[in-house]
Structure formats: structure tokens, C-alpha cells
């Protein structure tokens, strides 16, 4: 049972990394970015390339992979997302999905379709009450908590953070105070994409790596954002971990039903609390 909890928290942490960016993009630009997990996938593939080059030094390679993904997310924001401000849902869906099509195909082209194996970079276990818990997974959860605290500080203490919080509530109000909000939203977008890449990089050693990995986790991230509330930072944190637990517990009793259970929760939430886009 403890294992289930640890696994639940691990998945929750990864979902949190990915969903933060999605939630902020939803909340600020009102754009549903179907290409969001492209940076997730690209971060992973950058990782496996660099790991082959620099054997060992996982932490360094991980950070490098995340940084490499940043220019790509900037290009996506500049040429696609920015044009989608205020657009209706169907066009943002098509355009961002098209971006993801292009990206996934590019990955298939360069790296091929076959899954890459990768193993736990730490490989050590913590002895806890007679159970051995993988340290790596615990580390992921700790990083997630650190990130949560960092983001909270950012949004509460820095002026940029406050501008974004204000703009999430009243974009026109901020604009009428002379601040070019779109510029800050772009920064938020790139930040969110980098975090998604971080999630991918951290999860890669304990998951299966293939070009479509982004798509499968994208839908789950949507569920997290819907349940947690768009643009709601604390809500996203809680719902990520809650849904991670839902998945872990469901997987224990009903292995194929894990993802579906998440969707059932999302459907229930949507029925009682419809969102407004």
C-alpha cells in the first residue's frame, strides 16, 4: 500500500510539472494548447541524446535538456500561440494540434519510432519500515514541492508575478494601466513549457519513451487543469496529486482503468462546475 502511495505521489508530481504551464496558458491567454506536451517529449529526447554523450552526470544533462527546449517553445509562442489570442476554440485546437503533429513527426524522423529504454539514474532505495522505496521517486516529489513553493513566491512577491496574477483576473484592467500584458504572457508560456520539459526529463527514466508519449499524458494534464481550475495555481497542485493518487489506487485494483478513472472524475467535475471559455 505504501508503494501505491509513493507511486501516486510520483505521478502526481509529474502531472503537476506539466499541468502548471497548461493551466497558466489557459488562464492567461484563453488558449488551449494541444502542443503543450510537445516540449515534454522534446525534453526527453534531448535528454536521451545528451545522456549518450555525457555518460553519468544525470542532473546536469537533465537541466541542459530543459534549457535546450526553451528556444523551441519560444518559436511556438511567437509564430502560433500569439496569433491565437482571442480565437475561438476550434482554431486554437487545430493550430496547436497541427504544431504537435509537426513536432512528433520531426521526432520520429530524427530518432525513429522505437521506444528507448532508460533506467533509474539513482537506483538506490530507502529502507523505511521494512520496505524499500526508490529514492528517485521521492526526489521527484520533493522537487515538485520545492517548485510549488518557488512559484508561490514568484507570484506573490515579484512584480512580474503580481502583474500576471492581476492579468489573470482582469486583463483589460492591466492593459489600461499601461502594461503590455502579452509580453508577460509569453514569458509565462515559455516558463510553462520549460516546466513541462522538466516533468518529462524527470519521468523519463521510469516511464516508456516513445514519440507519442506527450499525447497520452496531455489528456491527463487537461483533466488536472479542469479539476484544479484554470489559472489556479494552488488548485492545480492539489488536483495533480489527487488525480495521481486516483490513478495509483485504481491501477492497483483495476490495472487498465487508471486513466479512465481520471476522466470520470473530470466528467463529474465538468457536470457540476462547467467552465467558461
Amino acid at each position: 500500500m505504501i508503494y501505491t502511495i509513493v507511486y501516486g505521489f510520483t505521478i502526481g508530481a509529474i502531472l503537476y510539472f506539466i499541468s502548471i504551464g497548461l493551466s497558466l496558458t489557459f488562464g492567461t491567454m484563453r488558449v488551449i494548447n494541444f502542443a503543450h506536451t510537445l516540449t515534454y517529449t522534446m525534453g526527453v529526447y534531448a535528454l536521451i541524446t545528451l545522456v549518450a554523450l555525457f555518460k553519468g552526470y544525470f542532473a546536469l544533462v537533465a537541466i541542459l535538456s530543459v534549457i535546450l527546449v526553451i528556444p523551441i517553445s519560444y518559436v511556438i509562442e511567437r509564430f502560433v500561440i500569439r496569433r491565437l489570442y482571442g480565437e475561438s476554440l476550434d482554431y486554437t485546437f487545430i493550430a496547436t494540434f497541427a504544431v504537435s503533429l509537426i513536432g512528433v513527426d520531426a521526432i520520429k524522423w530524427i530518432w525513429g519510432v522505437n521506444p528507448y529504454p532508460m533506467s533509474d539514474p539513482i537506483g538506490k532505495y530507502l529502507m523505511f519500515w521494512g520496505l524499500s522505496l526508490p529514492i528517485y521517486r521521492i526526489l521527484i516529489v520533493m522537487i515538485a514541492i520545492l517548485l510549488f513553493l518557488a512559484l508561490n513566491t514568484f507570484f506573490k512577491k515579484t512584480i512580474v508575478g503580481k502583474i500576471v496574477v492581476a492579468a489573470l483576473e482582469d486583463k483589460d484592467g492591466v492593459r489600461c494601466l499601461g502594461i503590455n500584458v502579452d509580453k508577460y504572457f509569453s514569458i509565462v508560456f515559455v516558463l510553462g513549457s520549460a516546466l513541462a520539459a522538466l516533468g518529462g526529463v524527470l519521468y523519463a527514466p521510469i516511464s516508456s519513451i516513445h514519440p507519442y508519449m506527450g499525447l497520452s499524458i496531455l489528456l491527463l494534464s487537461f483533466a488536472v487543469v479542469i479539476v484544479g481550475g484554470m489559472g489556479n495555481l494552488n488548485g492545480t497542485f492539489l488536483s495533480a496529486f489527487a488525480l495521481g493518487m486516483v490513478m495509483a489506487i485504481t491501477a492497483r485494483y483495476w490495472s487498465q482503468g487508471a486513466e479512465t478513472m481520471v476522466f470520470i472524475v473530470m466528467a463529474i467535475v465538468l457536470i457540476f462546475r462547467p467552465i467558461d471559455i
Partner: protein
Amino acid sequence: MLEIKNLDVAYGHAKALHDISLNIETGQTAFLIGRNGAGKTTLLKTIIGLLKPLKGSITYQGNEISALSPEEHYLKGLRYVAQEKKVFSNLTVRENIEIAAYASGEPVDMALDKITSIYPKLKDFLKTKAGQLSGGQRQILLVGRALVGEPKLLLIDEPTQGLAAIVIEEIVSILSGLRDKVSAVIVEQNLAMVNRLADRIYILKEGKVAREIVERSEISDTRGLEEYL
């Protein structure tokens, strides 16, 4: 100072303003009155750049501004206070002013001093989350935000709507203290306020200017104005 000529504004295919023309001199306070739906809010939103006109021109201090964005309008000294009384509710009063000061370049403390000198009671609320303020306090915060930096033209939409009489009185006194220093275009239903502060009045009806009043004597004729509300 502000000159609007033959302005047409539409939402999608529905025209909201037809051939609007009006004129404000520097230091004047003009009021827009009219029934709900007459187009007053639309007009203010177009002046500040949230809406773009189909045709016509808006000239401010000699320059055509209708194509500019709200951010650019701000830098020219125009300030907009919307009807909905939306503050940044998750931020404190102080932080609301911080954001207002950000683009203007004015130091936050200077901005705070300026506003608390106009409305000293605000000093007690600096650390309160703006969402917890009462309607009247919010309105004062919004006017305060608009006064940061060097405002030249205030565009205020129904400042006294839904407020208690005491609060209305406070707002009227703040605004009258600003007369001659700052120009203003104010949308209002409260005719007593109009009477006290107006230098000219524009009456809007169904998207057109029904009447322009520039004479002091006509402004005091509140009964004549009531029929337009």
C-alpha cells in the same frame, strides 16, 4: 484637447455608435448621460482603445489616437476606470497601486503618498486584499490607480453606481478637487453630481449624440435632463 469626429463603432455586425462628434477642452469635465444601452460605455471603451472604430477620428492633443492600444493610450495620459468596479482582488491595496505605478515609472511610495493625501482613509487599508474592500472603497482605489503617474484625461464609467450617499459625497469631493488639473469624461446617471461638476454635457440616445450642452444655465436644468435617462 479631445476631439471626436463622426465616429462609428460596431460590435461584430451590430452598430453601437453612429456618427458621434464631441469636443472637450483642457481642464474641462464633461459628462455623458443617457439610458442604458445608449452607447456611453462603448464610447469610453473606444476612446481608451479597447474597441476600434469603423470610421471617424479621435484626436487627442492634436494627434490621431483611434488606432492605438490601451497601453499606448496610458502613456499619453489617458486613464480609464471601468463600470464593473473590478479591482485586482487577489492583491493588496498597496500592490494594486504598485501595478498602477509600474508603467508610469513613478516610485510606488510617491504614488501612495499622492493617493493617501487625496483620500487619507486609504492608509488603513494598504495591507488588505482588494477583494475584501467595500464597493465605495473599491471605487476610490480605482480612481486612485488612475491618478498614478501624470494623468491628463480621466475616463470614468458610472463611478457612483450602487454606492451609499456618504461615499458618493466623498467621490464627488475628490473629483471636484481634481477639476482644472485633470480633464475628465464621466458617464453618470446621478444628476446632482452632474450639476455640480459638469462643464459640458453630452446626451446619448441610441448610439447618437442627442444633445450637446455647454451653457451653465442649461446644465442646472435637471428636470429637462431627466427625460433622457
